[in-house]
């Protein structure tokens, strides 16, 4: 690239550039590593209650404007749901309007299982998720025979079918329009009541075991999602989104990849739906299987930024705030649907890639690291020409301290 440096000041400028590139490369690798992602999500989960509840309360903001702890748990649950949905919408390019089906059947399965067999939260989570996976397998197997709008309509139709089946023919099991009231939540690992506070951790960070449970599930979901996206599988999914025909013509079985993506997103929805029931100890049919749930998850994912993975967390947060806090505002509260609509339009118009797209853009403005690194030869040359001895000494000391750095291995 910009190699005029080499001739002007032989070696040293280029060596500096290579050090700069390798420092940046290492930083980028750390930033993008799975462990960093896990740690950041964990810190986010830990800090959210403090930043959203404790801090505003201490600052004396009116309580009707600030978050409450169970709403943060609910946001975490929806974020898990949205991560799975984004896998399908953002990365595979499939728009499903029936995801309430997986969230809802998992919720019912977990609830009914707790009443009939065992109230262990882990068992409920496993049963709910497996149910969602089976349902997603069957529905996906049928719906994925059609693409685009037909796929969306098919999933919507199946979702509505499930809703009505649970509403009346199965009402003796599901409780019909009253929802399922007999959830019998047991103790986590047989010893922990999810409502209890977690010992050693201040309430301001983790209010209860329930939040810890949901938070751990979220960290797991983020890491799992991140891993999928960085696997060959994730690359193939994006290929299908970009150009399905070409993907087929490099010899990939597009249909099976899409089905697996559908099932995976169903599994995330199942995890979220099960935790939702564990938190509420009740399955309200309108918040489980009604088509509006399928709509909400589309809105949340697009708000956060389709194809961003992390955007889902912010999309869920914004949605939950408007739906649960803004809706309680004096005077304007009753218009919260309209407010949500305005927020949605504003985000889509101003930030076409959602909230996460906005964050990425802002980060690009602040940290212009790639450009700085690209220009490194020119900048360092000026430094080296002015202070040749100091430059050499500094470079040597850097080399001693950081093994394998500088000279050659610039990635």
């Amino acid at each position, binding site marked *: 690239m910009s190699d005029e440096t080499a001739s002007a000041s032989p070696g040293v400028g280029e060596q500096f550039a290579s050090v700069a590139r390798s420092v940046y490369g290492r930083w980028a690798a750390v930033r993008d590593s799975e462990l960093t992602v896990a740690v950041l999500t964990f810190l986010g989960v830990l800090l959210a209650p403090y930043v959203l509840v404790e801090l505003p309360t201490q600052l004396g903001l009116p309580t009707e404007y600030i978050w409450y702890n169970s709403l943060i748990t609910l946001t975490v649950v929806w974020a898990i749901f949205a991560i799975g949905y984004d896998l399908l919408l953002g990365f595979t390019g499939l728009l499903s309007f029936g995801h309430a089906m997986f969230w809802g059947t998992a919720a019912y399965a977990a609830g009914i299982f707790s009443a009939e067999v065992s109230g262990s939260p882990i068992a409920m989570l496993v049963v709910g998720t497996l149910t969602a996976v089976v349902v997603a397998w069957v529905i996906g197997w049928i719906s994925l025979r059609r693409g685009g709008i037909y796929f969306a309509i098919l999933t919507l139709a199946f979702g509505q079918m499930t809703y009505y089946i649970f509403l009346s023919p199965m009402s003796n099991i599901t409780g019909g329009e009253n929802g399922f009231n007999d959830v019998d939540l047991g103790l986590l690992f047989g010893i922990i009541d999810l409502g209890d506070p977690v010992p050693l951790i201040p309430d301001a960070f983790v209010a209860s075991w329930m939040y810890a449970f949901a938070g751990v599930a979220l960290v797991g979901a983020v890491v799992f999602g991140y*891993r*999928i996206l*960085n*696997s*060959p*599988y*994730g*690359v*193939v999914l*994006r*290929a299908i989104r*970009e*150009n399905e*025909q*070409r*993907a*087929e*013509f*490099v*010899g*990939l*079985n*597009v249909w*099976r*990849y899409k089905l*697996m993506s559908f099932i*995976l997103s169903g599994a995330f929805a199942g995890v979220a739906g099960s935790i939702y029931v564990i938190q509420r100890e009740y399955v309200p049919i309108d918040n489980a299987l009604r088509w509006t749930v399928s709509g909400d998850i589309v809105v949340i994912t697009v708000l956060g930024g389709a194809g961003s993975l992390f955007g889902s967390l912010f999309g869920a947060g914004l949605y939950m705030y408007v739906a649960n806090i803004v809706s309680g505002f004096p005077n304007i509260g009753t218009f919260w649907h309209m407010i949500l609509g305005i927020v949605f339009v504003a985000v889509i118009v101003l930030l076409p890639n959602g909230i996460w797209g906005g964050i990425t853009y802002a980060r690009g403005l602040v940290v212009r690291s790639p450009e700085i690194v690209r220009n490194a030869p020119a900048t360092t040359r000026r430094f080296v020409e002015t202070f040749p001895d100091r430059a050499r000494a500094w470079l040597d000391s850097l080399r001693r301290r950081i093994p394998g750095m500088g000279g050659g291995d610039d990635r």
Partner: protein
Amino acid sequence: MTALLETDDLVKKFGGLLATDHVNLEIQEGELLSLIGPNGAGKSTLINLITRMLEETEGDIRFQGESIVDLEPHEVVQRGIGKSFQTASIFPDLSVEENANIASFGAEHGSFRFNFFRHRNAYPAVEERTHQVLEAVELLDQRETTASELPYGDKRRLELGIALASEPSLLLMDEPTAGMSPEETEATVDLVEELQADLDLTIMLVEHDMEVVFRVSDRIAVLNRGSIIAEGTPEEVQGDEAVQEAYLGGVEL
């Protein structure tokens, strides 16, 4: 010597329209066969039948001696038939390297592998192949560019790379020079000839640019209204009266 690919009385009807009418075509290993004919002659239909994008009405297609009519398109690709499309068919929002990477995964891992738990860089054979593909189509330096930002000629080269990643024994090329400038056409023709020589490829070419066709072809088959009306070396076809009739409305060349 058995043909690499042969079609056996291949018939495709769209309602009442006979798109291909008992087509018997053979491609020998190592040759470059061009398929020409006026618009609507059935060239694309024939290509789509071979790639299994279309279901035949009657007849059989054999590749390396085995019938492929019951296969899905991706299975045909896995057997060794590659295709380059009329418009550069790439993955536009992904980088050049990722484009080649996807093709390499298809080639190394087969139609489907549920490998969602390992990092994609953990497959050296795939990386190696990706590197080779990009080197072959001379796009190694642009590997970090987003594919949609490439100039058109480079996009076509990338597409060719994607099609070649699976090392097909037969490559179907649907108008590779469509929409190219004379210089790009020239470069593409050179590339095709080079690839054919280097990789021992058999190529079936659909092309409208007669200059290109007569320059590169070993054999030419002329389609008109769904039937093959002439077949032979470029010289034979050029002198064929039926071809002149179909193509030029009887005007002498």
